[in-house]
């Protein structure tokens, strides 16, 4: 089974960020900056929770900060299984896209 589009965005966002930075608000900002897509935190956590249930990511609780109104962060890390599945998904997409450049402009 491959990853959904939103799941891929999440995994890539986590991989892009340092382990100290890979928590909800930064993941959200990363996706919004790169894709212009506005995502609700609730949607991020429900998806990440599902990924954690499949053993693709791991999370730990961080320190509370004043900017968060004293609420703790939850940091995420991509597990090897997650990285492997991400690669397989991307490869499958690339195979499907091969030869479509004249019609769609995808290279």
């Amino acid at each position, binding site marked *: 089974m491959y990853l959904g589009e939103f799941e891929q965005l999440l995994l890539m966002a986590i991989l892009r960020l340092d382990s100290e930075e890979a928590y909800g*608000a930064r993941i959200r900002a990363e996706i919004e900056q790169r894709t212009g897509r506005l995502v609700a935190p*609730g*949607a991020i956590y429900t998806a990440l929770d*599902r990924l*954690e*249930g499949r053993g693709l990511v791991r999370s730990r609780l961080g320190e509370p900060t004043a*900017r968060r109104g004293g*609420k*703790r*962060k939850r940091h995420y890390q991509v597990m090897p299984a997650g990285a492997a599945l991400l690669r397989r998904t991307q490869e499958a997409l690339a195979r499907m896209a091969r030869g479509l450049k004249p019609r769609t402009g995808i290279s």
Partner: protein
Amino acid sequence: MKRPPAIASALLRALMPQQAFECIAGDLEEAWTAGSLSRLRYWQLALVSILSVLLARFTSRDATGAAHLLKGDGAMRSLLQDMAYGARLMRRNPVFTLAAMVTLALGIGANTAIFSILHVLILKPLDYHDPRNVAYVRAWLHQTQTMRFGLSTLEMIHLQREASTLADVAAYTYWSANLTGGDMPERVQAYRVTANLFDLLGVAPLHGRTFSYDEGRPGGREVAVLSHGLWRRRFASDPSIVGRGIVLDGVRVTIVGVMPERFEFPVFNFKGELWAPMRLDADAVLAGRTPASSAVVVARVRSGVGYAAAQAEVDAVMSRLEQEHPDTNRGRGARLAEIGTIDDEIAGPAMIIVMCAVSVVLLLACANVANLLLARGVARQRELAVRVALGAGRTRIVRQLLAESVLLSLLGGAAGAAVALIGLSGLRGALPEVVRTTQPNLDALGFNTTTLAFALVLSLVTSVVFGLLPAFRAAGPAAQEALREGAGAGGSRSTRRLRSVLVVGEVALATALLVVAGLLVRTYQQQHRIDPGFDPGNVLTLTITLPEDRYPTPDARARFFDAAVIRISAISAVQAAGFVNVLPFSTYNRARGFSIDGQEPPEPGREPSAGLRIATEGYFDVMRIPLKAGRTFDTRDGAQGNRTALVNEALVRAHFAGRDPLGARLRLGVPGSDAPPLTIVGVAGDVRHDSLTERPQPEIYLPMSQAPPAMMMLAARTAGDPEAYVPVVRAAIQGVDPSQPVYHVKSAEAMVAESLYVQMSAAAMMSLFSFVALVLASVGIYGVIAYSVSQQQHEFGVRLALGARPRDILRLVMNNGLRLVFTGIFLGGICAFAASQLLRAILYGVGPSDPVTYSSVVALLAAVGVIACCIPAWRASRTQPMAVIRLE
């Protein structure tokens, strides 16, 4: 530093497991602190988060999915469980459930319906590219401080070339053409538009193309673009229509394109069914070789510039034109107005009143449900006390009660959505023609995702509003006491006081709404009773425009209308028939300047003007416009004979102070014009033309034979319902010329009624709301009294056993109830008095403190209050003392 929206945070905390709450609310607060979220965005993200977490919990019930964030900690059971428990309670208590749901359905339904209307009228953007930057450019006359839709083409070209803040400027004029060459000739709402209009709006055609630059210049090809509606109706959605020819006003025109279904233009006038290019040679107009003409102008403000900067540049261009062309442009400015907001000026104030009223209805519904919940909270005190005793925290209990409220309001919201749907479909059927043919976005009136989302959000917010107070109360310190006290007999005193306050508030709100509704209804009645100056009963009206190519001369036009009158009058059910160029309340009007021979020439700027009516002989008989002096037209007033005219009493009052107008001579046009003199042969009664409330304006009537226009309106008095005679009248006209279409077919009564449409719909809507408010308030009164009676049965039993008569009990209960009712009426009266001062501007014939309205509202509410109290009071007085005492 601003704090994040507290209600949204509280909602998050209440509806989410602790861990998920910490992550989600923390992220939102972090973004809020960083300043990257607006309040609206914060709310939006919070609500979407709640929905997605709830949804995820609902769908991932299997134990294998980790879902540890969503499962919540040990002390917390899932929201769904709370809801399931709530559902069981609701099933066990169907009367409570039904009462709460009906109440919520009324409140949410009314609000959803009004939101849908507002959405169409104001909020929903038009289907153009970036519609916020598309603006009407209207003329502003500095001297009279008035707005005019028309701008001259000269002004338009200057704006187009000189205002760099405007990306483009286009113009259009109303055309209305006869479309022939099919089974039935018809009149289509056509517009002549500059070739760049469709590009300016940024809308591509569904089929074919729009106009080329050359087609918008003199000598361009005769082409046209069809609206989706006309294409479907007249050409059966034939995709091969592009390139085919049609005949418009006798000219062969090639169809080059079809617009998409959602495209509507213009937005305040009749919706266009067909567009053809307006021929404009900009250089010739600038050089003065071609005279400028009048047109309605639209512009696209360059994106990112803003209206203020664009308006400043438009002002600069217009004031330069004032200097360069003082003869035509002195005192003329121009104002930009966003195209979608053009109706707000008229509909705005009325919509605000309606919105306030409908919010009051929702508040009443919330108060009622809160009341019901409070009453039930009292009954559940023992259950909750046991829970607290077993270790449930206060927040835990509040959350459980809120979950029940959410369930209740979601059900109520679903029922409310159904109510709104039924209401809107009824409303759609009842819209008058003038609204249907002019109001854009009407197809969106009904059910769509936006309305559904509104109903959903409203339900959630409502559940918090009505659920929070009873929930805190039930989980409060009283809960612990309840266990100690044993069976609570009627709830704590403060709960009872709170419920009394809610009832007083409900009655007060209902009183205020009823007074406002009453004033609006009286206004409508007063206006309806105004004599328009003619008798619109059983009069059929329709409009005919003769095409230039078939009727080029005045004689030909006069022959057509004379023949049509003879044929229509020959129909046995038609008592009389006549034509006039402009019927009262037909929305057309044009004032013409005139002068009276032998009178002082007027000061510049104060030249007299009058509405010009051109009528056939029978017109005054058909309309029953009384003749006040002299005679009406007859065969003596032929084109070759004496040039004659009738004037109305308003003109006599204004220009013949005390002198006899008969025999006086007047000339049309500006003073000193060489127009032939017209002899006044009669004085007709005043007719109100644009609205029933405005004073009759001066009018001049000319006999049709002297100046037969191309467009005339028929008035035919029929023996019964005029609508029934449309086919025979149409056949009679087609008997004169089979290719001649008729349009705007309606009864004169409908035309007069449409002029009162705004007042009528405001009065009808307010009446409906206040009726709902009255029902809700009476249910509220009944609920509170009935509940306290049931709690006090023991006391009544003892009283009766000790010798009280049933009548005493009746009086006791009635006194308690009516005290609340009259306090509410009194407070509501004060509110209504304050609110109705704001209505002063739209009232007519009644003052804001109209004693009739106030006394009837008080009487009505008192009667409703007595009835609502009577039933429980009577039941209380019939208490069987022995049965109650034995129960203990």
